[in-house]
């Protein structure tokens, strides 16, 4: 079953446009020298809006932990149950994390601590989302 389709807004549009080009683009505060995800209108640390810029990032990370969704509430995902929901930390800044269903990894067999790299998955017409794949 296709995943639920994200709807970009004014703040997130540059991020999703980059995803559709198979790039990871994160906000970066030039005052704090700090990456930020998900994107926001202002820097979470200093509150600046003007000093937030977009910066290409490396889609490399590690699996921190995971759960298996067996009885979730999202209609569109129910046929997928059970499915993994892993928490991925970004190598470039481990304080940033992402969700992943880890395509290709059977439910309950998630290798915690494993290295992962970003991939992209089509969820709707002209809309990709970022996903993660175990390396090696």
């Amino acid at each position: 079953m296709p995943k639920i389709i994200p709807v970009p807004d004014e703040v997130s549009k540059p991020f999703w446009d980059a995803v559709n080009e198979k790039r990871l683009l994160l906000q970066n505060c030039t005052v704090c020298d700090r990456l930020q995800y998900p994107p926001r209108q202002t820097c979470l640390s200093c509150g600046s809006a003007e000093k937030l810029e977009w910066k290409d990032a490396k889609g490399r990370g590690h699996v921190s932990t995971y759960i298996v969704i067996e009885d979730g509430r999202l209609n569109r995902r129910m046929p997928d149950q059970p499915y993994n929901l892993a928490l991925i930390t970004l190598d470039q800044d481990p304080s940033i994390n992402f969700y992943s269903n880890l395509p290709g990894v059977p439910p309950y067999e998630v290798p915690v601590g494993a290295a992962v790299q970003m991939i992209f998955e089509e969820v709707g017409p002209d809309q990709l989302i970022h996903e993660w794949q175990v390396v090696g």
Partner: protein
Amino acid sequence: MATQTPYEWRRDTDGMGVWEHRGKVAVAGFGHSPVNRRWDETSMNQTLGAYSMLACELAMEDAGVTPDQIDGVICCQSHIAGNSGGSSSTWAPRPYFDPPYESEWGLTLINADWLVKQMELPNVKYTPSNVPTIGEMMGLAAQSVADGLCTTCLVIYPTGNLEGRYRRGGENAEDYANGARQWTVPWGNHGGNDFINIFPHNQYCQKYGGTHDDLAPFVINQHRNGLLTPWGYNASSGMVQLTEEDYVNSRYILNPLRIFDCDRPVNASAAYLITTAERARDMRQPPVYVLNHSQHNFTQRTTQPDLDEIEDWTDRAARRMFEGAGLGPADVDIFNPYDGYATMAQFFLEAFQWHGVKRGDAFAFYADDIRVEGPHPFSSSGGNLGNGRTRTAMYTDSIEQLRGSAGPRQVKVRAETALAAFTTPSSGGWMMFGKHPS
């Protein structure tokens, strides 16, 4: 009727010092409606309106207060289920009933004005709007009384549940994810405290050792305390004591989160009567004083709060509460944290260092004697896991323990202070009660 907005009542920043009204406000009464699993949509004596009026009447009776003495009504309008409420979010509009049920008010939604009218309270002058959920609402009430906006105030928290799977529907049935949900829903996180806490809980097990099954003694004890609470769902519905076998064999929701780690949605209402300490001394029950209220609303750094963030937030909330109450961990006799999901209680227990529990110690503490008869009567209320998702058991038990009227749940240890909350690690509020005003 006067509505006080905006009103800066929250104590939600660090370093505010001891609450200036410490011990000058008290809880003088409480009342609970029956707790049903659902409203059947036909029994008019079981609507949220009927149940809220009943709870108010019981609270006034408990305090020995007459309707003409009530001058404030603070009521949370939420029926809990919210925009993703499944049947609850699609139930209305529908053909309504004869007055007072000619609209949604009184059925699945309640507000102060509806209650004041139906209960014919002649002297109410204070009915704030946009009232938050009970974790903050109790603080709003205490501060309002302390600031003189009212003197004798009913505080009402209804919790609704209709037929159908809870929160199946609404935005959870949509194919698109808007707003903050664009960062979570495509991967399966529909939002809520179950998701907020299960990942840090897993990281907790990884960091400190232990497994998810180490929650079993806590969950079982919550059910035990619930069965000792006559008004709660478990005790009033003929539930039997949960066993370890029941727990470890129960089905998973968000593996490793099990069904018994989740509270049961119910249809119920509760009311509290809050007044000045001076007035409370002349009322029917011994006053239970408010020593502090505090709130917090922390912003998460990224997609998912991790263990470090959760521990930092709960540490800050604990410092804030202790500072405002002028008390420390060793001073807290009764500890009733929020337990809507079993996976979050350890974060609160360790942050507040109740009975000396430090980070990483919770599972060993749970395996010790936490029964109400024992030396560490943790969560003597039974919370929401033991009583249903009323979100009020923590407050009522704290009041009863300090009054000495908790019956079979009455702890054997000292009961002169009590800490209660409906809060997640990221947002909500705490309240410190005292048997004495100082």
